């Protein structure tokens, strides 16, 4: 399977996991992002994800390379779904295998944080009372330089 993938198909967690299994891996940390119904008082009916697909796949690959620099034995795979997703559907699945567990936890957490910073994917929430494109998840970030930190070569 492609290790870094934007897909319109439902994500198969086990496929993502299988692509990081390795004889010297003792730990695999998997992060799965699913569509949540309630955010505060707002009720989501469904979501729509859109991506700049070729660039998004390159940025996922870049995250994998960043992880390999920080945790040299790590193997990473990331699939992100786009299109219309219902409650409890999987939006993203990240798997990182490492020899020891601490690195696996840290690296998979790093991956999800980085996805939310540099991968050109956008979420539109369809609430029971309207719809909204979600900006970055803190809702506060601006990019005066025109790009997130540390992404310009």
């Amino acid at each position: 399977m492609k290790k870094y993938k934007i897909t319109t198909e439902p994500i198969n967690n086990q496929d993502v996991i299988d692509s990081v299994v390795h004889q010297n891996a003792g730990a695999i940390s998997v992060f799965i992002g699913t569509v949540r119904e309630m955010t505060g008082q707002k009720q989501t009916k469904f979501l729509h994800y859109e991506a700049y697909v070729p660039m998004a796949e390159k940025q996922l690959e870049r995250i994998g390379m960043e992880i390999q620099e920080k945790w040299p034995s790590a193997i990473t795979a990331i699939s992100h779904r786009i299109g219309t997703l219902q409650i409890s559907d999987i939006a993203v699945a990240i798997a990182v295998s490492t020899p020891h567990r601490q690195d696996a936890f840290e690296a998979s957490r790093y991956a999800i944080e980085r996805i939310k910073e540099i991968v050109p994917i956008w979420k539109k929430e369809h609430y029971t009372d309207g719809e909204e494109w979600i900006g970055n998840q803190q809702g506060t970030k601006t990019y005066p330089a025109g790009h997130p930190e540390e992404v310009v070569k």
Partner: protein
Amino acid sequence: MMINILLFANLAQQAETEKVSIEVNSALSVKEVRTLLQQKVGKLTGIENALLAVNEEYVELTGQVKDGDTVAFIPPVSGG
């Protein structure tokens, strides 16, 4: 020379299109592309907060754009 522009999410919604082409006479910066774009499609609220990419790589506002390049305006991302 021809510059291809890609818009996404709320920027595409405002412009009512995801792709715009502009014809220019000389190499220019992303910042200048941003100005020409809005002369063509109208003011795009929030475009000053967009990340910038040329040919699928992030660049600075001062990044140079050549004939045939694709410039993308990337609103704050919300994947994951």
